[in-house]
């Protein structure tokens, strides 16, 4: 698939009555990048993701996902994968049945299903648990199964909404290994997280606070602009002080210019 950007939004806005959940968001993500989307609870991350998935229409602005306009939700849905913070698979279905189900929903057939299922079970390290009920799996396994299900139709873009919330450190590391492997296959990944060690593993990071994009760049750029050595401090500073530092504002401005041309 030839396209310049996997995600491209300009002035993306969503209001619910008087409340502005997402305020004039502009950014671009290149294909194959892992984009860490950071921000406190209620800052507008999930709303943004819902708009990018095509299940919530924006109040303003425009955007393209995988080259499709946000209004073209049919096309978008067929080409993206999504995994939410809650384990939202069928606990009373086995590992295999869960994969089969999503394969069916996305229109995979017969041999295609078997091959893809085998591939995913290997990739997501689920070997040996094919016949286990999803509900009996532990947290880390569940997350990997959810990832496998989200990947069943070979999406070009993967949305992960706090995929590792409540999972132990070892399982988190394993999960991120998987993400790297998926990204290496050319899949663009948008991931939200509250773990800053995870954020530092991303190619690009965006900070959102009260619906506004407060910072955007590689983890190195962001830490450099603030003169801090880890993203956690950056995050806290942005949220606590509505960060107004010049170097920081310069970085934001240059990024905005790059996206919107203003």
């Amino acid at each position, binding site marked *: 698939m030839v396209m310049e950007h996997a995600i491209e939004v300009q002035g993306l806005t969503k209001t619910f009555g008087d409340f502005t959940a997402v305020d004039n968001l502009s950014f671009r993500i290149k294909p194959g990048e892992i984009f860490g989307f950071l921000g406190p609870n209620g800052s507008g991350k999930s709303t943004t993701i819902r708009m990018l998935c095509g*299940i919530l229409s924006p109040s303003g602005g425009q955007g393209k996902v995988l080259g499709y306009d946000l209004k073209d939700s049919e096309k978008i*849905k067929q080409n993206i994968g*999504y995994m939410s913070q809650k384990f939202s698979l*069928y606990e009373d279905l086995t590992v295999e049945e869960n994969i089969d*189900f999503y394969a*069916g929903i996305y229109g995979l057939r017969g041999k295609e299903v078997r091959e893809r299922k085998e591939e995913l079970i290997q990739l997501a390290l689920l070997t040996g648990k094919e016949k286990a009920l999803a509900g009996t799996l532990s947290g880390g396994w569940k997350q990997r199964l959810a990832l496998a299900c989200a990947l069943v139709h070979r999406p070009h873009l993967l949305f992960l909404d706090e995929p590792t919330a409540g999972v132990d450190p070892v399982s988190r590391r394993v999960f991120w290994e998987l993400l790297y492997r998926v990204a290496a296959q050319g899949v663009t990944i948008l991931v939200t997280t509250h773990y800053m060690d995870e954020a530092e593993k991303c190619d690009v990071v965006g900070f959102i606070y009260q619906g506004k994009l407060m910072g955007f760049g590689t983890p190195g750029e962001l830490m450099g602009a603030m003169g801090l050595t880890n993203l956690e401090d950056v995050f806290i500073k942005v949220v606590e002080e509505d960060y107004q530092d010049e170097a920081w504002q310069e970085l934001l401005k240059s990024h905005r210019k790059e996206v919107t041309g203003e």
Partner: protein
Amino acid sequence: MIKWFRIRSIVVKEIIQIKRDIPSLAIIFIMPVFMLLLFGYAVTTDVDHITTVVWDQDKSPQSREIIQAFEQSGYFDIRYYAGDMKEITWLIDGGEAKAGFIIPPGYARDVLKGQSAGLQAIIDGSDPLIARTALSTAQMIGQVKGFALKLESLSRFGLGIKAEPGIDLRARVWYNPDMESVRFNVPGLIGLIMQNITVMLTAFALVKERERGTMEQLIITPIKPFELIIGKLIPYVGIGFMDVIVTLLIGSLWFEVPVNGSVLLLLALSLVFLLVALGLGLFISTVAKTQLQAMQMTFMIILPSVLLSGFMFPREAMPLPVQAFGAVIPLTYFLEILRGIILKGIGLQELWRNVLWLAILGVGILTLSAVRFKKKLD
């Protein structure tokens, strides 16, 4: 464009889930049998064997004769013989006896003289159904016995006439000649069972999806609300249909209430009613947030439909506003259809009005629910 493969995936998944869900299985397989037994045996409005106490102050062959007449009617079980009024009061107060007969001293004397002989019946009126039966039976026995005595005394005075009643009323009860409640209950049960099971399971199936967060995942797939609804409903149409057949079989083989009309027509119209019930379940699922709420709302639908549809109580006896309320309950029309086909053996020619109303309500409910459901997803 509707994709059949997506619907099929939902159906397959749903069937696996039902197979693994013990409570659902219990509802599907045990509820019909349980309700049939309950309404076939326990909930019967046929009153007989009323426990009875007698205070015979006369102790004559004549008084024994009348007591025997009560006993032989089959309606009264003479369990107690009291010696005074206190004892009768005590037995009826305590619920030991539901009816009491007092035969005054001099009963035989009056009878033999051809005079009007007094006889007192005391009936526990707290259950009107029992009281009404006891009262009318007692009166009837009294009249018949009185008439016979009159004739006897007349003939003794040499006035033997061949007595013929002034009016010869020959009653013939159609469709249910023995007037057994089970024949009335079983056809209605088919509708009630079908409604309860389908409404409950459909509502659960959809609410569960939302409660567990799996709906969130489904929305992001390319599946369309319509495909999801169809896929979810197909297994429950199957289950509902299976329950109709099970209920019909038990009804005709065990309770001996055969289908007098066309079985095919019955099944076809059951399908129409099934769609109505599915619509109701779907509607609940758009309102209820949890399975518990869905359960409560299901009962909010079940209760009025048991009471107002004519399932237990005749609608003709209800005040007009209540009757009007019953007229918007789909079960009301389906009951007419069921009883019509099963008991009376009638067909579409007589039932078309009920079918039409059922269809109108069905299309209305299903459309409303589908629209609401779709909105909820968007």
